């Protein structure tokens, strides 16, 4: 009898232990939640949940204009759910509200209008730019925003690792960067026509918070858990793994926006967030997503003009001379393009337009060349080229969404019809995998280009990435210089035409089509008249001050 009691005691102890474990963790969690009790209360009086929002709003509509909900996706791997994403990589809606650039631009990303800067002047040789900063600018912590911050940001951008290459490509042309009071002088080594456009995107970061941070690890610094901002909003609360909220930046010098609070949910999937009403703004460029969003009648769709390329890269050789023999014959590469019916494939994407070079067919600069689909011809050309059809062609792709998988499956099918054996692999990364293993023949990529020039600057022989794929071929270099330094439309078109011919002759990088991008806004948001959205990965003026939420 005693024994049983002992056993029962032991059992009981185990149970108590496990209950304690549970209690411990839920207790810890309770602590977390109480910590932010204060902001909770504020949140519920300001907006409440979406169900009760209407009643709250009627009471408060005079005071403020409700809460805007945004979604920050962690599904694409470029952002994580434990910090504010850096504005130096993609400029997403949430960070656009927090960080400003020297200038702002319109939906075509070509205009240059004042933002942090009042204005600028260019010398006649297009080598010297003088930029005048506005007076009395302040960061969200009350510190003054000065020319020092601008110079610090540009210099740091050249040293950091995670940054969009449009900045490094432009800033590497800067030979001298000086400040005198609030006047900044930028001197270039060669003319760079896009420099001001690039500055409309480049977010200025606070020197006083970041000067002691290793630039290489800048994007992972604790700064991003509570950033000092220059925009209309400052961070209110970051709840790791769940959301971050924004409040008005009291030091913002412009007109305060009508929307006083923004909630950014970390989501793995935009569509579910939209369906659940957790985001008032989202964008999509896959057919199934666009189709679904158009069905939701509480969302309004806006088509956006974006150069979103879907393209192939043939894995040629590295600068070390290591070759991928199978793809060396240009006839094989061209035959592969001939085997794929791109017109049919474009049905998988919304508003996809087949294109034959980096220049869309409807541009003036387009040279008229076409890759036509002819399955029989392709089959013949592959045999004539002497390519061993029993050898597996390896394609790698890195987008894991259904549309990309569908597209790849279709391409595999077309190539098999042309008599080839094909294997498609989902890789972690569509570009570096090409040369780190040199095991793949073709990489499938997507690129939302800032401008046409960005497509062509990838060919430059000093490009550390693509040099490893195109073997550091220098054939493009002089033409690319001609393009980036061209100051008028004629010279640009001239350079583009020459580049297209070279591009089509080499067939290293072959575009399939550009795909349409749509921005969707919830109907509870009132957007002022005349607003046009730009490429959702960049920043432009959308008159946010006058947005309202019902």
């Amino acid at each position, binding site marked *: 009898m005693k024994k049983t009691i002992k056993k029962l005691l032991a059992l009981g102890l185990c149970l108590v232990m496990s209950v304690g474990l549970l209690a411990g963790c839920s207790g810890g969690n309770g602590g977390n939640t109480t910590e932010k009790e204060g902001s909770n209360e504020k949140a519920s009086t300001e907006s409440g949940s979406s169900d009760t929002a209407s009643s709250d709003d009627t009471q408060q509509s005079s005071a403020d204009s409700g809460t805007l909900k945004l979604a920050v996706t962690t599904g694409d791997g470029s952002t994580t759910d434990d910090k504010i994403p850096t504005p130096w990589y993609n400029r997403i809606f949430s960070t656009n509200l927090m960080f400003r650039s020297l200038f702002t631009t319109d939906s075509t990303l070509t205009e240059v209008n004042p933002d942090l800067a009042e204005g600028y002047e260019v010398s006649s040789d297009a080598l010297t730019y003088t930029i005048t900063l506005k007076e009395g600018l302040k960061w969200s912590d009350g510190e003054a925003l000065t020319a020092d911050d601008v110079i610090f940001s540009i210099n740091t951008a050249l040293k950091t690792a995670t940054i969009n290459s449009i900045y490094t490509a432009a800033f590497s042309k800067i030979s001298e960067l000086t400040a005198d009071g609030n006047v900044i002088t930028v001197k270039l080594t060669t003319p760079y026509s896009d420099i001001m456009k690039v500055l409309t995107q480049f977010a200025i970061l606070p020197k006083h918070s970041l000067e002691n941070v290793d630039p290489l690890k800048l994007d992972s610094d604790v700064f991003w858990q509570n950033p000092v901002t220059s925009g209309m909003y400052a961070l209110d609360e970051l709840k790791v793994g769940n959301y971050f909220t924004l409040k008005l930046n009291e030091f913002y010098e412009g007109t305060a926006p009508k929307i006083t609070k923004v909630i950014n949910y970390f989501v793995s999937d935009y569509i579910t967030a939209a369906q659940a009403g957790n985001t008032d703004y989202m964008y999509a460029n896959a057919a199934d*997503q666009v189709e679904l969003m158009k069905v939701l009648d509480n969302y309004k769709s806006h088509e956006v003009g974006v150069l979103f390329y879907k393209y192939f890269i043939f894995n040629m050789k590295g600068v070390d001379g290591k070759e991928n023999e199978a793809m060396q014959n240009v006839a094989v590469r061209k035959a592969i393009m001939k085997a794929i019916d791109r017109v049919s494939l474009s049905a998988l994407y919304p508003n996809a337009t087949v294109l034959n070079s980096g220049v869309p067919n409807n541009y003036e600069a387009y040279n008229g060349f076409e890759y036509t689909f002819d399955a029989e011809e392709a089959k013949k050309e592959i045999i004539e080229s002497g390519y061993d059809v029993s050898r597996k062609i390896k394609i790698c792709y890195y987008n894991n969404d259904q549309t990309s998988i569908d597209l790849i499956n*279709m391409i595999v*099918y077309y190539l098999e019809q042309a008599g080839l054996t094909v294997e*498609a*692999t989902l890789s972690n990364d569509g570009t570096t995998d090409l040369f780190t293993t040199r095991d793949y023949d073709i990489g499938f990529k997507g690129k939302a280009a800032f401008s046409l020039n960005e497509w062509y600057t990838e060919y430059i022989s000093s490009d550390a990435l693509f040099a490893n794929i195109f073997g550091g071929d220098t054939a493009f270099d002089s033409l690319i210089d001609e393009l980036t330094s061209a100051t008028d439309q004629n010279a640009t078109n001239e350079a583009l035409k020459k580049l297209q011919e070279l591009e089509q002759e080499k067939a290293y990088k072959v575009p399939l089509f550009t795909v349409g991008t749509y921005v969707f806004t919830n109907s509870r948001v009132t957007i002022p008249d005349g607003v046009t959205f730009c490429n959702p990965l960049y920043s432009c003026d959308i008159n946010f001050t006058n947005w309202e939420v019902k």
Partner: protein
Amino acid sequence: MSSNALKSGLQAGNKNGSTSLLKKKLRKFLNNKLALFGLVVVIIMTLGCVIGAIAGVDFKTPDIKNLKSAPSSLHIFGTDTIGRDLFSRVIYGGCFSIFIGVFCSVMSSIIGTVLGAISGYFGGKIDKFIIRISEIFQAFPQLVLVMMIVAIVGERGLKNLLVIFVITGWMTTYRMVRNEFLSVKGETYVKVSEAFGMSKSRIMFGQILPNVMSPIIVSTTTNVAFFILQEAALSFIGLGVADSTPTWGNILNAAKSVSVVTNQWWIWVFPGLAITLFVLAINFLGDGLRDVLDAKQQ
């Protein structure tokens, strides 16, 4: 008396009633409607898949004009996101899924049984050693293994998955067999066999194993279902078999796209139903077998 004579002597007792016992068990099984249902479904689905695959159903030609078309007389399950016939895909994918389930569960049962027998019968250091190994395998997250092997081999192939499922799936059978052996090895007939100098492997596999066969058969059966579900789950996280090999899990993967879930029910309902039905049937079958084979419930 030779060991042969002993064996026949030992078996004689069983044999007397064996035919009537078999009949009784068969009747009991046939009376279990769920188990019978399970058996019939498993047989029909397996045969259907195999026959379909041999007949060469076209599971891979996309039809760009009939993307996502609803079930019709032309495509009785409809077509998928790139216009391939879903019926053919479910049939063809079934072959792979069922194969994965059966192969992995049989292989892992064999490994588990052999190791369990050795461990339980010999005990001592060997037992301790194998137990440690099994604990390490048990503790190792399958996901990480899959990821490492995929990265090392460089492809998401069927072979990888089979290897991983087998090496991470034998531990439950192992523990079960070991425990059975531990409790059985003290029984008189084992002692008698040992006394007559029967070889150890014969005692283990000839004498003791038949007595613990029932739970092994039952767990092998239900494991088939487990592995099929595992495959589907791995596909969902993106670590399953490559897309060019259709499996039920791969086909069901389309349910990742919210638009498919809401607008094209047939794309995920049919493969989902196939998995569910098959797993259900296997479980009923396993339950029935347990009822029949379990001596305690005679």
